[in-house]
């Protein structure tokens, strides 16, 4: 799975994108977040301490969204454009 990051979260993660093979039991966004928090302490820090949004193929999704057909997952902080 290709995961991309933006703005403050990109800086915290320390890279623009990461390809991670998610195990089969990761079905929802919530599952993915739990998995990444165990994956390493950088993700743990981001998801524990910062506001974040997740988009699957450019659509904002909730924590219970099923990611099976997703090509690209984006993780980013609250938007501040305009």
């Amino acid at each position, binding site marked *: 799975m290709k995961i991309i990051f*933006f703005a403050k979260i990109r800086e915290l993660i320390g890279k623009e994108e990461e390809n991670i093979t998610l195990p089969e039991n990761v079905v929802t966004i919530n599952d993915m977040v739990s998995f990444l928090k165990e994956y390493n302490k950088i993700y743990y820090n981001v998801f524990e301490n910062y506001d974040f949004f997740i988009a699957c193929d*450019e659509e904002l999704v909730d924590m219970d969204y099923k990611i099976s057909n997703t090509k690209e997952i984006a993780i*980013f902080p609250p938007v*501040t*454009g*305009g």
Partner: protein
Amino acid sequence: MIDIRIQSSDFNFEKEIKKFQKNKIDGAVVCFLGSVRDLNSEEELKKLEIEYYPKMAKKVLNETVKKAFDKWKLSQCLIIHRFGKLNVNEPIVLIITQTKHRKDAFRANEYIIDFLKINAPFWKKEHTNKDSYWVEQNKKDLDISI
């Protein structure tokens, strides 16, 4: 006419507005222009950097304008949103809406900027003479019911 542009370069106001004036039927045009402000602090803003998620930003702006066309009788709409490093006073965003009746042009324009502020994936970072800071989301923007 729907014209949505995300660009690093500046734009010419006169040129953009002239395109709207060619419409002979709809006489009301409303523009919103958002520019880089100086900081309300002791630090001096050197640059405002805007990062964005290209594919999603374009998609969100397109959907927003389509919603505005459905809700009001828009004849034309332009959105220009800039990215990259901008100086104080430089324009960040320009939204132009055109309708037959002015109330619709005001409503549609405000709807688009409100929606953009809370949904379009752009992020601002302030580079001052001392440090750099990511701008926090304005809670006021979230309170707007659309």
